[in-house]
């Protein structure tokens, strides 16, 4: 038998350079780094809040650094990107059938976007932004 199948490995550490869609996937996954880091910041904030008014004010003041601004920009991008990919995915995870037809995916995702916008406005309002 002269069979000698050639195995062309999928390069384990660089595969995501092969197609643009893989890069898009990886950037979605990378958002977790910033989300995670931001969560740590929230935990720290809670600790400060528990420690009393002075600690809390110091914490707020501490946010005002160049590093913090850069970090916030990144976190903002990451959370927005996460939100968009997540809402776009809902139509896949939970298709809704009404009668024979399925509700078009963009309606399901669209509804999520609307709910998201409303929720965000409510939070901003409660936080006294306007």
């Amino acid at each position, binding site marked *: 038998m002269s*069979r000698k199948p*050639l195995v*062309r490995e999928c390069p384990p550490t660089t595969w995501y350079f092969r197609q643009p869609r893989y890069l898009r*996937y990886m950037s979605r996954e990378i958002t977790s780094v910033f989300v995670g880091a931001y969560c740590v910041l929230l935990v720290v904030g809670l600790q400060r809040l528990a420690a009393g008014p002075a600690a809390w004010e110091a914490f707020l003041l501490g946010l005002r650094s160049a590093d913090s601004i850069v970090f916030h920009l990144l976190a903002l991008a990451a959370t927005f990107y996460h939100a968009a990919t997540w809402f776009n995915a809902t*139509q*896949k995870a939970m*298709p809704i059938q009404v009668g024979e037809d*399925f509700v078009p995916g963009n309606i399901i995702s669209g509804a999520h976007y609307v709910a998201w916008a409303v929720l965000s406005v409510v939070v901003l309002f409660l936080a006294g932004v306007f």
Partner: protein
Amino acid sequence: MKERTIQLEVLRYNPDTDTEARFQRYEVVCQEEWVVLDALNKIKADIDPTLNYRWSCHMAVCGSCGMMINGEPKLSCHAFLRDYEGVIRVEPLAHFPVERDLVTAPDDFMEKLKRVKPYVIPKEKKPISEGEYKQTPAQLMKFRQYSMCINCMLCYAACPEYGLDPEFVGPAALTLAHRYNQDSRDGGRLARQEVVATHEGVWTCTFVGACSEVCPAHVDPASALQQMKITSSIDWIVEHLIPGGKSARDTVSREDAGDIS
């Protein structure tokens, strides 16, 4: 008819003579509306009879002619020359061993298809003489999309998780399980869970979504797999967190599994 000369760069590998693959460039006079497969056929007939690849239907339904075209998994009978500029690079489907030239070995995929029990395990048996199982158009639509898979394996070539972990049952096979799970005539879901709800089953999928993007039959395996993750999670909760849930489940699934033969 408009003609156009195109350059194809095709991966060649002959186990009889080669130790590694190499690219070979062909120049082919094509017609504007041709697909890549037409160009390959022309090479085979007029330029180089030693070039090997699979094809049959030329209408995107038999699933034989999947290849990487400029790095993207495609049916070559559905890859229109009008969509390409410059040199077109043709390689065998990624993530499968290359038997020769553009011919890959699909054994792993075939084995996985079989593993998911892709046939009706009837909820209630009934003889042919009693006619058809009633199924409303709505019940049909529930699974029809998932029954459209032509087994072309493009999704396997697109899914990096399959490339990284060949144990992964993979998008098309799992979607086929979902197709039967969703069929109103079927009662075999729990039997299929033995494959679906494992690490190599849906849990290797990280929802890259490439499978659905390349699927020529619009099957949307990514969606099927997400849905199965949700049902598998609910199953798990029933089995482990609800008292009596596990034993009840087990009896059902044993009956289901025993029902076939």
